[in-house]
């Protein structure tokens, strides 16, 4: 099966109202090409799930400036002042999630788990509106799974079967999000033939990857 797509085909994947997960931490490990495809698609009312909203001009930042996002689920928005301004103006709904909880919620969504029982956030604003459980004398928040229509990811290398390897700190949320979306699209820096990646060093198995953009 041919998983390769062109940037033009990538543009056709996005629709109004979609939930999109984007890999990356401060833009490192975010697919610039797939962000540009979302921009070109002009899809509106996106729910964006991402570690942060990067800077204005990097990572997923441009999606915020381009008024395509109605809700952000992230652990940090402070480095992109546009996100904060739009939040205060009531133009974007922001759900702040502790970074470790964000990773766990995405994993739960992609792993068939009903939620995450985490001590993080107990006794803080994060607890508001959530169920808490006492287990063996300690209190935990029940955090709900996250799932997306599309995950836009960035990897270093892929083979044509979609097996992925990542480079340095650009790995971050990418492998987790590969589990948690109906459609997983990955921009890679280098595409190799099947058999060129050592199955022991593959981080994300190709069975999780639907489309590859070089």
């Amino acid at each position, binding site marked *: 099966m041919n998983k390769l797509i062109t940037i033009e085909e990538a543009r056709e994947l996005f629709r109004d109202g979609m939930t999109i997960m984007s890999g990356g*931490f*401060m*833009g*490192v*490990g975010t697919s610039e090409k797939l962000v540009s495809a979302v921009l070109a698609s002009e899809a509106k009312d996106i729910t964006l799930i991402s*570690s*942060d909203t990067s800077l204005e001009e990097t990572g997923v930042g441009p999606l915020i400036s381009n008024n395509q996002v109605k809700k952000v689920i*992230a*652990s*940090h*928005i*402070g*480095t992109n*002042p546009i996100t*904060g301004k739009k*939040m205060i103006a009531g133009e974007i709904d*922001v759900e*702040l999630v*502790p*970074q*470790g*909880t*964000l*990773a*766990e919620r995405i*994993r739960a969504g992609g792993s068939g788990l009903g939620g995450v029982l*985490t*001590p*993080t*956030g*107990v*006794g*803080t*604003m*994060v607890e508001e509106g959530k169920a808490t459980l006492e287990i063996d004398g300690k209190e935990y928040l029940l955090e709900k799974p996250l799932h997306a229509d599309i995950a836009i990811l960035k990897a*270093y290398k892929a083979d044509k079967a979609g097996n992925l390897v*990542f*480079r*340095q*700190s*650009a*790995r*971050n*949320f*990418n*492998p*987790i999000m590969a589990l948690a979306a109906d459609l997983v699209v990955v921009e890679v820096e280098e595409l190799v033939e099947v058999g060129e990646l050592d199955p022991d060093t593959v*981080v994300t198995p190709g069975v999780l990857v639907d489309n590859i953009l070089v």
Partner: protein
Amino acid sequence: MSEIMKSAKETIAERVAKEMRNGDLVNLGIGLPTLVPNYLPDGVDVILQSENGFVGLGPVKDEVSKDLVNAGGQPTGIRPSGAFFDSLLSFSLIRGGHVDVTVLGGLEVDQNGNLANWIIPGKMVPGMGGAMDLVTGAKKVIVAMEHCSKKGAPKILKECKLPLTGKGVVDLIVTELAIFRVTIDGLVLEELQEGVELETVMEKTEASFTIDSNLKTEQLN
């Protein structure tokens, strides 16, 4: 370095460095905490974690890599003994108690070990990033901050007024004036920084605290 020239931040970082043990896995917050490695005692080497996905944080070598940044998004390096992983394993290390020490700045700390350092309502909201996980999961949580705000208001309070980062999570508070340990009975003044008088600390600290019996008597006069 001359004692006279030492800034409050340097004094704090130097004292925090003494809390580290050789081989500790340490996560440092942005700002002041990043100064700590400069002051590690001889024979003490620590492994730094960057919560965006690796252990072995070190200086940039040879050339900058676009894919290698620290938790502040700045270019950095990795030691030969380091390892990269995803955000999931990174926070398993943090929440699972594998991080020995975390050092974070604080807006407010109170006598119950509560910490507030992520949001000032009405102003911009940066988000908690990894801080809530760190204070919940690290074996030892050190708050490294100046004793008072820029306006001179105490930051060590009876009760935090700002939204909390963590409830009852702080183990040690290190300021340029003093070192407090948080116990189940409240704050204990464990040490005065060199040249600081008890009176000054009492004046600039809103929280109630007891004085450790080991506090050197010469320090108390």
